[in-house]
């Protein structure tokens, strides 16, 4: 490849090349050969000359405005940090505030931090951990399912009519306690494990009257020895504050003294059942409360009452007393509690 030189035998550059290297020519950063070429270009190019003049004018102007001098205060301020907090302090002129105001503001900030810390920190957990954690637990009751024996027989069944008014037998650790609760009375009797447990009776009719009652009432218990030949009327004391008008039903009570209790009792039981009598409490008919006593708590149709009385008369004199009771029986059904005891010798 050969290059053609001009008629003057000189290497020439194009205007594009010359224009592109004009600034370097102005700054004198070209090598000597190129500088000479660009210089020749400029001699014959009016545009290049104008451009060089504009460079010079711009440069002169820049040199003029570069002579702007900042004040020492400006320089000092420029050296300081420029954070937002610093600027806020500077603009608000906080260091020049009265000392009382500054102290007050700082104390408010400190108090705010303390209040936030107190509010956020879980003090309960901290105290709990500081007191040793689990070591402070107190065991109140411990029950094991294996130790619990299910109730059997009459103890487990829920009777239609809960037995009641069981006379307190001799020698047994029994206590009748009525605890007045907000909605019902519960009569609880705890006896030794050899005796069947008596179920509690809830009295729905006395709900309203017992709302304010907080007392305990104890049933009047009449020992067996104090019972005369005639039936003794045993009245259950209703909890205080309950008027009798609330009791809607009747309970028939009686005691019969017989000779040969062991042989007589089954006959009585059989007769009651044949007349349509059914147990009304938890215990079975003729429950042996003591060796010399049998307990009959049953219901019988009203029509059969006379037959029962005539049957009982052949063993002894039975007098029935009627008392009011909150427990209401269906129409035509009577509820009786008859205690058959061995006549004293």
């Amino acid at each position: 490849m050969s290059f053609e030189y001009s008629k003057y035998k000189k290497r020439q550059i194009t205007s594009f090349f010359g224009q592109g290297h004009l600034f370097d020519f102005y700054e004198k950063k070209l090598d000597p050969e190129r500088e000479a070429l660009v210089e020749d270009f400029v001699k014959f190019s009016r545009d290049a000359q104008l451009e060089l003049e504009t460079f010079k004018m711009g440069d002169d102007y820049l040199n003029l405005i570069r002579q702007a001098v900042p004040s020492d205060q400006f320089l000092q301020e420029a050296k300081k940090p420029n954070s937002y907090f610093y600027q806020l302090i500077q603009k608000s002129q906080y260091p020049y505030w009265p000392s009382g105001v500054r102290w007050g503001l700082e104390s408010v900030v400190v108090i705010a931090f303390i209040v936030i810390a107190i509010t956020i920190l879980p003090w309960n957990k901290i105290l709990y951990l500081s007191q040793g954690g689990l070591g402070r637990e107190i065991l109140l009751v411990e029950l094991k399912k294996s130790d619990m024996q299910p109730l059997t027989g009459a103890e487990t069944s829920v009777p239609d009519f809960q037995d009641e008014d069981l006379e307190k037998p001799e020698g047994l650790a029994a206590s009748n306690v009525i605890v007045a609760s907000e909605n019902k009375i519960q009569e609880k009797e705890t006896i030794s494990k050899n005796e069947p447990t008596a179920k509690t009776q809830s009295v729905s009719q006395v709900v309203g009257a017992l709302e304010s009652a907080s007392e305990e009432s104890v049933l009047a218990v009449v020992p067996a020895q104090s019972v005369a030949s005639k039936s003794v009327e045993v009245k259950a004391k209703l909890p205080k504050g309950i008027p009798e008008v609330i009791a809607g039903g009747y309970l028939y009570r009686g005691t019969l003294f017989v000779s040969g209790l062991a042989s007589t009792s089954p006959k009585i039981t059989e007769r009651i059942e044949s007349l349509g009598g059914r147990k009304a409490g938890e215990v079975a008919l003729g429950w042996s409360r003591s060796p010399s006593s049998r307990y009959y708590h049953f219901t019988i149709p009203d029509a059969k009452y006379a037959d029962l009385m005539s049957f009982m008369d052949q063993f002894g004199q039975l007098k029935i007393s009627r008392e009011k009771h909150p427990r209401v029986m269906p129409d035509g059904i009577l509820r009786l509690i008859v205690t058959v005891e061995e006549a004293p010798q």
Partner: protein
Amino acid sequence: MNDDEVRRISQFFFLLLLNERRALSSASKAVQKAEILLKKNQNLSRDQAVVIATSEVCSGFSFQLAENFQSRFQNWRFPETADLNTWKDYLTHQRREEVLCLLWYRVLKVSDLDIATALNIQIGTVRFRLAKALKGLGLRIHEPGKSHEL
């Protein structure tokens, strides 16, 4: 940063923004950033750190250059023959990267090689921008008020 470097950085931002408050804020930021850059990178030259710091501060500008032009200055003294209106007009119409290159080259006295290294661009790009910036300034001075689109 020494006093001369702080003065040059202050001059740079003042001529760029023509507003004392903004210039002070920007110069303070740039000084802090340059000091941090020099601490982090020992291989960085002071000129390159200054270019990087000022470039980062300028990239955060959300306003036009010389937007809040002040006609009077409290902390700056100018030669009486200096006409800042021409400079304001130049800043408004010239491209920002060309103005920045010109100020780095002429005000901060940073070489084109350091500018190219700091900005990670070609040196030819720097010289091209410088030529255009200087030519645009010259034309605006030669023919003020006339549009000089290059």
